[in-house]
């Protein structure tokens, strides 16, 4: 265990833990758009910057990304000093110039007092802030269906050759983690479409409810040894099946007793 001071309060943390997870546990709200616990810290959005110092640093302070700064004993952290807020404001202002139409960015920027960007809005920009969560999560799942292409200001998230990604299984995780909800998909009938690729949704053989795609189920069966017939029923029908089974067991044991 290490002990550090955050906004004047002494808190305990586990060695090797990142600052952001400590502040989250303490209920301190720090914006962190490129962070998700499912993947390694990335340090791209820079919104989680905090001010750090130590008693022995002689008044010298540093600004670090909380999502990947490991806690240290004796660290003194300010999560919302005026300088930190100013840095966040500028970064949010820049993001607002990039995605002027994103409700999520607009709201976060407004929280830091930016309602209108001071910079040139980027012509025909989409709402992607290039946090890389979609590609990193997809990689973490083992599919690596999408990636970032290009560099610098022209970087975009795209499937290989911008065509329907052969390795995508339609699990939707990318769309789920996207902080600005950029990734579009559609479930219609028994068909799901994402990244311009169509998937069959498995319908529960009792009630027809759809949960995941056939491709995803097949991937789970082959990679994780989940029997394929597990996917034939939806969760609700599975529960019903279990209750019926339990009823049979009870009545069987009653009959056996009598």
């Amino acid at each position: 265990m290490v002990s550090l001071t955050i906004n004047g309060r002494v808190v305990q943390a586990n060695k090797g833990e990142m600052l952001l997870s400590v502040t989250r546990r303490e209920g301190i709200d720090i914006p962190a758009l490129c962070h998700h616990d499912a993947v390694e810290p990335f340090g791209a959005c820079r919104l989680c910057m905090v001010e750090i110092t130590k008693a022995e640093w002689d008044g010298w302070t540093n600004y670090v990304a909380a999502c990947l700064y490991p806690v240290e004993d004796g660290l003194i952290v300010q999560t919302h000093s005026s300088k930190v807020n100013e840095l966040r404001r500028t970064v949010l202002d820049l993001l607002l110039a990039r995605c002027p139409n994103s409700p999520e960015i607009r709201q976060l920027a407004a929280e830091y007092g930016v309602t209108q960007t001071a910079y040139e809005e980027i012509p025909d920009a989409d709402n992607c802030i290039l946090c890389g969560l979609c590609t990193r999560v997809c990689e973490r799942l083992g599919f690596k269906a999408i990636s970032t292409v290009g560099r610098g200001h022209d970087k975009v998230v795209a499937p290989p050759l911008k065509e329907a990604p052969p390795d995508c299984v339609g699990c939707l995780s990318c769309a789920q983690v996207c902080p600005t909800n950029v990734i579009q998909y559609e479930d219609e009938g028994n068909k799901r479409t994402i990244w311009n690729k169509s998937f069959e949704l498995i319908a529960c053989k009792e009630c027809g409810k759809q949960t995941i795609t056939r491709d995803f189920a097949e991937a789970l069966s082959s990679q994780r040894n989940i029997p394929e017939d597990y996917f034939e029923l939806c969760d609700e029908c599975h529960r019903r099946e279990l209750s019926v089974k339990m009823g049979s067991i009870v009545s069987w044991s009653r009959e056996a007793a009598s």
Partner: protein
Amino acid sequence: MRIETPQQLTRLRKDCLARFNRHPQKIHVCCGPGCLANGAQKVSDELKKVIKKKRLKGFSVDALKETGCHGFCEQGPLVVVEPAGTFYTRVKVKDVEEIIDKTIRRKEVLERLLFTDPQTGEKIENYRDIPFYARQQRIALRNIGQISQCDIDEYIAVDGYQALAKALKKMSPQDVIDEVTTSGLRGRGGAGFPAGRKWSTCARADDSPHYVICNGDEGDPGAFMDRAIMEGDPHSVIEGMIIAAYAVGAHEGYIYVREEYPLAVVNLQKAIEQAHEYGLLGDGILSSDFSFDVHVSRGGGAFVCGESSALMKSIAGEVGEPRAKYVRSVLKGLHDKPTVLNNVESYANVPVIIDKGGKWFSAIGTKKSTGAKAFSLVGKVRNTGLIEVPMGTTLREIIYDIGGGIQNDRPFKAVQTGGPSGGCLPESKLDLPVDFDTLTEAGSMMGSGGMIVLDDHTCVVDLAKYFLAFLVDESCGKCVPCREGLYQLYGLAVAISEGRGTEADLDKMEKLSDTIVISSLCGLGKSGPNPFLSTIRYFRDEYLAHIRDKKCPAGVCRELIRYEVDPQKCDGCMACITACAQNAITGKKKEVHTIDQDACDKCGACLAVCKRDAILVL
């Protein structure tokens, strides 16, 4: 043939030296990038042909050496006849026969090919007497231009691999680290981190294996020091790396070479093969129990790949994007293992330090920046080329004594050091000694050693725009402040250069720069606003002229200038009329011409062709 003992190496050195000096005269043809571009290969081929044809006594093709960059690129192709040091400039194929007939056969000097001192107008025969060379002190560049590009025997002849033998046989790894620490050697790749400290941290790291990596990415536009070393003296880098590996306990190393340097790759690979043959690489080097091998890794083709964490990712086969980590790469580097990363020039200094001692090295230069530093001197300076000067030499000495001053005697305006994210220093800083800390304090940086000299025809707003555009292009795009911030900073600079800027924009740019510097993830972003910050620091007036008066004092920013014909000077020669692609100039022969401002697109073609200085930039 394997060399087993230091004694064998010494014997081999004697043999090599004898062979090296077998000919009373030698011809060195510079085959560095500058000279090659000017036709050096043809000159060399012709020399070989003529030598074979003439069958001179005591002189064969073996006496001709194709060397690495001799330095004085501006005067190339260069041919040097040693040992006299007779220095022929701008040599053409048609000069070859005469060189052989006169200089080699009759020891006569060809006056017309000699260098003329622009100050005195005198011809100088021996290159060592030319101020460009006389003021230099070559340590890292010691062999370049003196030996064939890729010949281990010649490297051994000039004391190559003696330092390695000394380290392996007479010194412990700790002794080696101590010697490097004593030398005060600081990294030549940019940040100037003390090499000894880096090595010692790595050596002490528990995790294994350890790696050593050489950074040969050299992404700064206009810089070619590392290229010259890798192509012209690859063995010095390899020897430096083996010594480093011995010191930090590494058995594997990588040389990461910029994608655009295919010859460097070829020469390094050749050199590695030669070193293997002699048993200087591989298992049990010089019969010790130390083993080390080195691989050449081709660069990922982006500027940011030169950044340490991006470089290590690129070597590991991943996308070369910087990784944010607050654990230093010397502890968790390549494959998350302890790694020493140094620049090409840093390694090239190591054998000399081991050979002559850290004290010898630290006596050169200044107290905190020891040794010498290589620069590629380019821009509006008379003598462009590759130089190496003791640390602490002033900018004025470099630009005026070595560089020969500004071309066409125009006024000096600024010197840009440290590559694209370095800074510009004005005339008032010319007497600053060049060392790591002084340059940083003055708002520029040492960088890897690019030095661009600018005259009064350079507009600093335009310059900042140029470097910002480069950085916007080269940003990997991972983090927001660099990707979006530099883009906006560039946009604001463009607006100023087009007369659309306001004074409030300057404040905005300064504030934005501050955020980019503090919050970017890697060094590219952190130093990205420098082209703006250093120019605004020293040339605020010029920015204000663009903003308030809508004028570009240097006459560069197209939107703010117009070309006019000076009726006093124009003699109606019609040269400009032919040159103008827009047909914007009218006038009859021997009558004063006029420029139609609406049609003119300000390309400057007229200005370039007018022999009478009659085109005015207003």
